[in-house]
């Protein structure tokens, strides 16, 4: 039985629900806004879940997610700095922040001839704390921008796609698509790495090179994503697990499924975020609130 069919149907349902459900009456303007949300939701949810799946495979660690490696906090820091300077959210600064911190973590973990993978995770976590503290300082200094920074930290799909940013967003999405396909070619390597590092090296995989490629490419992807929609948590952690539970451990199957499931999950979470209170919640709040119990339920059932 092809398990993609029901997953795809749920995905379509999620798109449909995101478009029709909302506090305002549906008219042409609202429709345009919601379609732009749907596009960003599919993009961000898909990218985060796919990257999460790749990184969990590479590190053989089920608790790694895209943000463990520091890129997300870097984006939040960059965005906050931009806000301090220009008084508004700046995707470019968020993007530079993500890459900057990602690169810094990479430098800490780099040794002659490769990367120390444990050190990479540790450096990422430590850098996340550092970035959080710096963001706090900026928030205290900035005062009135606090609210906007909060959306950057928790994630928000309501970025209006208009004539000024349309081209940039399209370019970012196309670039992300290419990068995802590029990473997908390593599905067999990831299967084999789960058998152990020496086994993988003995089969001809250059682990150091692969780690560097995957780390830098995912940092770039996360930087792009966070710079557009903010740091949406939990999608990259939970969705790959759900994908593996449904599609099994083969990355050939579970990575594309992660993309679809991540997109679906984020669209549904965003729909909830829009209707649950009078004020719109940051979508990251909902992904955590919905994601955590769901995750516990799935794991207990296994």
């Amino acid at each position, binding site marked *: 039985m092809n398990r993609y069919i029901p997953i795809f149907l749920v995905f379509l349902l999620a798109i449909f629900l995101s478009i029709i459900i909302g506090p305002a009456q549906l008219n042409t303007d609202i429709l345009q806004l919601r379609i732009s949300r749907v596009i960003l939701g599919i993009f961000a949810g898909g990218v985060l879940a796919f990257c999460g799946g790749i990184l969990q495979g590479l590190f053989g660690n089920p608790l790694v997610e895209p943000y463990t490696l520091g890129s997300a906090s870097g984006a939040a820091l960059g965005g906050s700095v931009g806000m301090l300077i220009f008084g508004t959210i700046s995707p470019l600064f968020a993007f530079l922040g993500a890459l900057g911190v990602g690169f810094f973590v990479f430098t800490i973990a780099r040794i002659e001839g490769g990367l120390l993978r444990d050190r990479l995770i540790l450096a990422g976590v430590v850098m996340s704390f550092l970035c959080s503290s710096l963001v706090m300082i900026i928030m205290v200094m900035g005062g009135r921008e606090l609210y906007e920074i909060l959306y950057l930290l928790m994630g928000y799909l309501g970025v209006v796609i208009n004539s000024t940013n349309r081209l940039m967003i399209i370019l970012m999405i196309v670039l992300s698509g290419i990068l995802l396909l590029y990473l997908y070619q390593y599905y*067999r390597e990831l*299967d*084999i790495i*789960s*058998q152990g590092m*020496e086994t993988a*090296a003995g089969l*001809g995989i250059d682990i150091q090179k692969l780690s560097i490629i995957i780390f830098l490419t995912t940092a770039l992807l996360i930087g792009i994503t966070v710079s557009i929609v903010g740091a949406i948590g939990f999608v990259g952690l939970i969705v790959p697990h759900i994908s593996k539970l449904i599609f099994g451990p*083969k990355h050939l199957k579970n990575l594309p499924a992660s993309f679809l499931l991540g997109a679906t999950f984020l669209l549904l979470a965003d729909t909830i975020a829009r209707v649950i209170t009078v004020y719109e919640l940051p979508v990251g709040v909902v992904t955590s609130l919905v994601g955590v119990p769901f995750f516990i339920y799935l794991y207990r059932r296994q």
Partner: protein
Amino acid sequence: MNIIETRDISFSYNTKEILTNVSFSLKQGEFLGIIGPNGAGKSTILRLICGILRPKHGTITVSGHDTRGIERKQLAKKIAFVSQETHFVLNFTVEEIVMMGRFPYLRAFQRENKTDYEARDHALAYADLQDFRKRPINSLSSGERQRVVLARALAQEPAILILDEPTSHLDLHHQFAIMELLKKLNKEGMSIIAVNHDLNLASLYCERLILMHQGKVFEQGSPKDLITEKILKQVYQTEVKVIRHPQKDVPHILLNPKGE
């Protein structure tokens, strides 16, 4: 003919010298054992031969070619490495794991073809795993898992098999099964290098032994030449009694507990 030859290889981690000027060779179709105390550098030699590590000095040639000039995937078609890793993070089925041995032959997005399936099935049959093929790996015992790991290496269709302590942590039955399997492979032409801590097993199954001590080759030769009370005392600092195996003409080691 020497299928593997190492000349004066040295290796160090940071400043710690692990191997110093190690030279030895593996003849085509030979069953070579590497023995020695913990930390003597045995596993490092295996990793150097498989291309997982690069020697700081010296050369390693496989069928006359310097391994530095061989692409890693190409080397993996020639040499299969059975590491001590039998812990599985993801719960693949036995046949999926054995199919991973075909990695060196496959490009990204290339589907496995008839040759790959045949090599997999042959390896499964050889390791007597047909009844387990659809079973998830984590439902198998450690002895069965060791056979899966060996089958994965056989699916690589290598000319040389390199094993890092293939019988450690196994019960008597599985130790025997693995060693007999290796013997059969060797009879059919496979060249084998195995690190083994169990000197009696090494003595029974290996044609020739290399005794490592403090990063150097202490001695090499037949089990009869190497496994003597004098040499073992020097290298292991342990008083043992060496007798002749009652059925085979090989040495057998007996320990003497103190105070009796």
